[in-house]
């Protein structure tokens, strides 16, 4: 019963704030924070239970939502290591961010609306995590999109924010188009929507390989949209128009990770899908990771930089799933949630202090904002994947999985991306916190309500990776394989990366790459031994391209969107207005009127004309009569 509370409590919070406490901002925030903390407390016992017993049985509860002949759709929840991990991430990081937001959004108009939307988000996100069947996960998938829309467009009076919200929703819709088609394919192939039942059927080999491949790719479309993979990545950078806590929670830690979570949850499908389908996924992930890292280099807005780094991380996760390392992907998801949220919240702190997003308008903030600085640096080190921070272990898992699956090209891409990541993260740190003072005004450290969450997140960002350390704690250490296996565990088969090995080669290679990256970043931005502007001038074409996001957004906006609105839609409108309405309908009316005008002339008023007509008619009838 308490599982359902995970859904009911945040929804109730959202409703209470909307209808009852709308005008009382402080109270509304307490309601929202209380709801998510309560959810965390509900999750905690399950987490403990799982840590004690990684191979715990899954628990499932459901009720029928739609029940007609031929279609039974249930709403149900499933508790297994995979969902518990995700529940933990969502509620814990969510709680921290809720608390942080109380301080960050203080005094803003629409404070209550913000928290209502946050609660709606928690409700929807938990729904995705708990869902035990495809329809339910799709329902909450869309609802999470709604919450994202409301939060990105929070400052709706700003045209950029309104546009960004619309863009996010629509791009996600395109992904959902593929997603729902994939769901239909699977339904007609297996006769059920339920994950566990479907896993059994697929593992029994009852579904054709081609169908599985098609379904896998279609379902992956949903992940492409939600997790902002290429080519549907364009909404994520724009989503930074939303308040920073939103970026932290939704566009870093949880919602965008939902795509990866969904891939893990439906791991049974991907384990059975043909190799080619998996390769598509892996390459899209790798491409996204690499491209995003490049794009981050060209940005100056701290939130945008972190946003692109998120894109890059998501690419890593997707690539990991594609090469069969689902467990690694989930592990990275968990560590990423912590350090990325930390980075965003840290960025928020800095933005709050300097009233600007541009890193070139900051500088030498470290003396003034020690806590923010330290936590930010810790988060960055985790992000870059330096030993022994969490990011090292998780990134290492992914690279290991990639290398040992034989995808050397992707491995190289992964390492290269790590290097580029190190470059731009170093850039951010040195330009923002060190170097010359460029800010205006008097930045100061943020209040405790904001710094405490930062510190807590930092702790986790540093240490949570040790969960993957071989031999540290047998039960905790094997939870990775439990997570990896749990998505396929319901049929008792281990996921592809059930085996968990550590490779010195991979670890050393990635570490070297990272240090090279740090060195480059240090040289350019801190020591200024090479002038970054000179580089920009030398590669000016490439540089401009990076700044314009490789013109992908332009392509979408000017070619596709404008093309459809201005050209295609107008063609249809033309057909409608001119051909159907004007030509056919009004034309018919016009012809009828003209005939009427013509016939009217026969009414001459002359008696003898009428008489003539009568006589003529009689003659005609007579002739006909005679002839027939």
């Amino acid at each position, binding site marked *: 019963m308490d599982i359902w509370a995970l859904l009911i409590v945040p929804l109730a919070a959202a409703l209470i704030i909307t209808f009852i406490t709308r005008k009382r901002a402080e109270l509304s925030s307490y309601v929202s924070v209380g709801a998510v903390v309560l959810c965390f407390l509900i999750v905690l016992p399950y987490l403990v239970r799982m840590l004690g017993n990684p191979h715990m049985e899954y628990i499932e509860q459901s009720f029928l939502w739609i029940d007609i002949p031929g279609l039974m759709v249930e709403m149900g929840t499933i508790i297994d290591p995979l969902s518990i991990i995700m529940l933990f991430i969502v509620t814990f990081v969510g709680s921290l961010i809720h608390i942080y937001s109380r301080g960050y959004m203080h005094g803003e108009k629409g404070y209550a609306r913000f928290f209502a939307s946050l609660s709606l988000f928690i409700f929807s996100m938990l729904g995705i995590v708990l869902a035990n069947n495809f329809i339910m996960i799709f329902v909450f998938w869309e609802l999470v999109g709604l919450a994202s829309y409301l939060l990105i467009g929070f400052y709706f009076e700003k045209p950029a924010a309104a546009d960004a919200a619309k863009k996010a929703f629509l791009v996600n819709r395109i992904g959902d188009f593929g997603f729902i088609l994939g769901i239909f394919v699977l339904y007609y192939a297996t006769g059920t929507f339920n994950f566990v039942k479907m896993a059994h059927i697929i593992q029994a080999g009852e579904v054709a390989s081609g169908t599985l491949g098609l379904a896998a790719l279609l379902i992956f479309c949903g992940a492409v949209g939600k997790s902002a993979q290429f080519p549907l990545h364009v909404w994520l950078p724009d989503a930074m128009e939303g308040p920073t806590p939103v970026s932290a929670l939704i566009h870093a830690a949880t919602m965008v990770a939902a795509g990866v979570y969904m891939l893990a949850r439906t791991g049974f499908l991907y384990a059975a899908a043909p190799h080619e389908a998996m390769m598509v996924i892996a390459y899209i992930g790798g491409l996204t990771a690499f491209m995003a890292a490049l794009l981050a280099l060209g940005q100056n807005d701290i939130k945008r930089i972190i946003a692109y780094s998120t894109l890059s991380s998501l690419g890593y996760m997707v690539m990991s799933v594609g090469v069969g390392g689902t467990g690694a992907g989930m592990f990275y998801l968990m560590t990423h949630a912590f350090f990325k949220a930390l980075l965003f919240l840290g960025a928020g702190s800095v933005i709050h202090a300097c009233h600007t997003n541009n890193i070139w308008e900051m500088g030498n903030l470290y003396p003034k904002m020690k806590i923010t600085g330290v936590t930010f640096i810790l988060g960055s080190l985790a992000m870059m994947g330096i030993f022994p921070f969490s990011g090292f272990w998780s990134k290492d898992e992914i690279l290991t999985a990639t290398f040992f699956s034989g995808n050397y090209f992707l491995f190289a891409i992964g390492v290269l991306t790590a290097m580029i990541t190190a470059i731009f993260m170093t850039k951010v740190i040195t330009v923002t916190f060190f170097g010359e003072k460029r800010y205006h005004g008097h930045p100061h450290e943020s209040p405790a309500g904001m710094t405490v969450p930062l510190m807590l997140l930092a702790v986790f960002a540093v240490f949570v990776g040790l969960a993957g350390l071989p031999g540290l704690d047998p039960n905790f250490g094997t939870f990775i394989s439990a997570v990896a296996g749990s998505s396929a565990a319901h049929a008792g088969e281990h996921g592809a990366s059930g085996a968990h090995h550590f490779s010195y080669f991979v670890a050393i290679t990635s570490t070297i790459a990272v240090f090279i990256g740090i060195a480059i970043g240090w040289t350019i931005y801190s020591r200024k031994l090479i002038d970054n502007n000179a580089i920009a001038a030398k590669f000016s074409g490439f540089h401009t391209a990076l700044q314009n996001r490789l013109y992908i957004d332009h392509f979408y906006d000017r070619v596709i969107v404008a093309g459809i609105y201005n050209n295609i839609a107008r063609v249809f409108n033309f057909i409608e207005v001119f051909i159907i309405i004007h030509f056919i*309908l009004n034309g018919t009316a016009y012809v009828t009127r003209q005939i009427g005008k013509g016939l009217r002339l026969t009414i001459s008023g002359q008696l003898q004309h009428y008489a003539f007509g009568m006589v003529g008619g009689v003659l005609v009838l007579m002739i006909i009569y005679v002839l027939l």
Partner: protein
Amino acid sequence: MEGFPILSVIMLSPLAAVILLLFVDDARVALVRGIAIASTSISLALSLYLLFIYDKVKGGFQFIEKIEWVQSLGISYHLGVDGISVAMVLLTSIVIFTGVFVSWVGIKHRIREHYMFLLLLVAGVYGVFMSLDLLFFFLFYELAVIPMYPLIGIWGSANREYATMKLTLYLSLGAMIALLGLLSLYFTAGAKTGVYTFDMLQIASLSYETGYQIKVFLPLLLGFGILVPLAPFHSWSPTGHAAAPSAVSMLHAGVLMKLGAYGILRTMWMLPDGAQYWMPWVAGLSLINIFYGGMVAMSRRDMKFMIGYSSSSHMGYVLLGIATVNYIGVNGAVLLMFAHGVMTALAFSLIGFVYDQAHTRMIYDFSGLAKKVPFVAVAFAIMGFASSGLPGLANFVAELMVFIGAFKEYPVHAIIAVFGIIITATYMLRCMRDVFFREPMEKWDDLRDASTFVERLPFVLLIAVLLIVGFYPAVLVDVINSGVVPLVNKLNAAQVG
């Protein structure tokens, strides 16, 4: 006739109001409104009651009332409802109840006549949904169309003369074509059994040879299809929507268009072989509705035209669902008829509310309205998301069922239909962004939000219905299902033509 004639009361309540209003002076506005509200409340209460007391297990037509009218010709006053009709009757009562409140705010002159025609129209609609006699079916059908002429012509907005002419003539044409089919059925059934009757139950119980069914199905499909609106006979609809006053648009898009789909469903029931033959055509035409309607909606800047084409597009989903001839698709189609009716009523009432104050409906005339009219903005957003098929609102469940059903029978059509949800979201969100978000314009500083009970009630009620059915669809789906199952069974027992 046993027990309380609930169906007759539901239908006669508005008729009684019309007669009462004849004796009321136009100047006594409060009394006029009071009578209208009273009669629609009675209908609404009874329709809700009907929903709950309808026996889902037994199914079939219940609450039957029959009075012989013209015995020698076989005409009788014969009412009865099955699962599908119950949902439609409920839809009608919800829409007219909220419509009365919307007219309260919007109509300022000749109020008495407005309500008279409105209620007369509604009585006709009830009659169509309840009638089990073909002649009365046709009679009520015409009764539902003719009052549109004065309603749009007198109380409409710009271009109303053209719109009302077009709408009334087009719909009457459709009715006439359908009449051909109905009469043919009457004569054929009579020739078969020796007893000439218009009784639908009787006619449906006979079986006709396939060739005849195919021939007769066509005029009925076309005649009712014009009202759906089946592409390419749809252009009366957006023009009519745009010119009509809010309550009339609500009824028109919310209820009237469902009459056509309902007619098609009943025709399919009477002529199963013919239905199976023509359904692939319907499926194909429905795609035109969905895609073409959506594209034209994208290009329009007048909000009412945009919603009008959007309605045309959504009815395409309904047609696709009907064309699948399986339990899932048809259930989805009927549920979508209900959900769409409520949603579109909400849309037109909102646009009408803004139009009454702003005197413009053009998207480019507005910006940043969410600051001035937050209640309307939220309601409009809910409507926009419902139209786009967001889960939690009724339209999602219905569209999902239509897609699942369609994917089984016509996978390619289903793919295109699913693509339609992207199109809908595009123009809806764009409209929301352009009208409600972004910076506020000075000229709308004086816009009043929906603040009084009378102004808010219709919006709240319609949104509540969408949410209730969205979260807990079983409340309607079970009843609809009991009507759909026998229909689909009968259709699938037939051989494909």
